[in-house]
């Protein structure tokens, strides 16, 4: 578990750098470090499929950001501007509230990444009898983890909405 905490510390550092540094390209790279640390973390807790997705998403995001930054400007113009106090206070209040509630809500969860594959073995052993679906993947994504699938559907819906909004040309009378 030591490596997980080392990764967490590295991610925290990279996140702070990404927010505070003046060069936007360096900020994008630091953001990439955070993402790749998440990918390594997925590998450490034995979720290689998620790690692959995370790597792909992270590469695409960093390349996209780098392309935009190289074409526009390197300098973060928001650093050095007089800070606004109200949003910071609101953020801290709600952040603390969220942390306290999460502490209570997640008290009974097992320790992070331990024991590995406990939930998975529960799904494999009880999936057929509890949901009646012979395909254990279907029983997980549509019954136990239905909310995840709903989120996925929303992601797809949003991407379709975005593409249709940006790329629509047929509706215009030119």
């Amino acid at each position, binding site marked *: 578990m030591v490596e997980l905490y080392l990764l967490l510390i590295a991610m925290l550092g990279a996140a702070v750098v990404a927010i505070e540094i003046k060069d936007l390209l360096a900020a994008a790279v630091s953001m990439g470090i955070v993402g790749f640390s998440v990918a390594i973390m997925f590998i450490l807790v034995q979720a290689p499929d998620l790690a692959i997705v995370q790597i792909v998403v992270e590469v695409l995001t960093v390349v996209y950001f780098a392309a935009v930054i190289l074409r526009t400007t390197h300098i973060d113009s928001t650093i050095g501007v007089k800070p606004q106090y109200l949003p910071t206070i609101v953020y801290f209040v709600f952040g603390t509230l969220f942390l306290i509630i999460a502490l209570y809500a997640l008290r009974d969860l097992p320790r992070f990444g331990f024991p590995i594959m406990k939930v998975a073995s529960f799904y494999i052993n009880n999936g*057929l009898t509890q*949901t*009646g*679906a*012979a*395909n254990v*993947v*279907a*029983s997980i*994504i*549509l*019954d136990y983890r*239905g*909310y995840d*699938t*709903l989120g*996925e*559907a*929303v992601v*797809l*819906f949003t*991407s*379709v909405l975005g*593409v*249709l909004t940006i*790329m*629509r*040309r*047929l509706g215009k009378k030119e």
Partner: protein
Amino acid sequence: MGGMTVIVKTITRLIAGFIFLYGVYIVLHGHLTPGGGFAGGVIIAAAFILLILSFGTLEMKERVSYAFGSLLESIGGLMFILVAAFGLLLGSYFFLNFIPKGTPLRLVSAGIIPLANIAIGIKVGAGLFSIFLALGASKYIMKE
């Protein structure tokens, strides 16, 4: 507008129906065999994309299928949420499996899972097809 050569058109005419059927099979058997709504929806979308690519479309026809695609996508999403919310209406929790489970390994079994698979299949197929039309086909046709 014109589409591809006669070889591609002939092969497509033979194959597209089978691809579509295979996608429907994958969606309907999502709770029994590997696959499900997402994979089957992609295959269904691939059948239509193959048709559009090989035959080409008139702009009017494409506009109709464009509107139809986004309509179907929304219907699929709504269907999925309704299936999930029906458990809430019955006085229990979201995503309650309210239909009797039935015997395993039969086509009609596993409660709401096949319904949710069908909804996701419609949604993914129509959504990917709409994305394809918006990203690729419309530009291709506008040029001609």
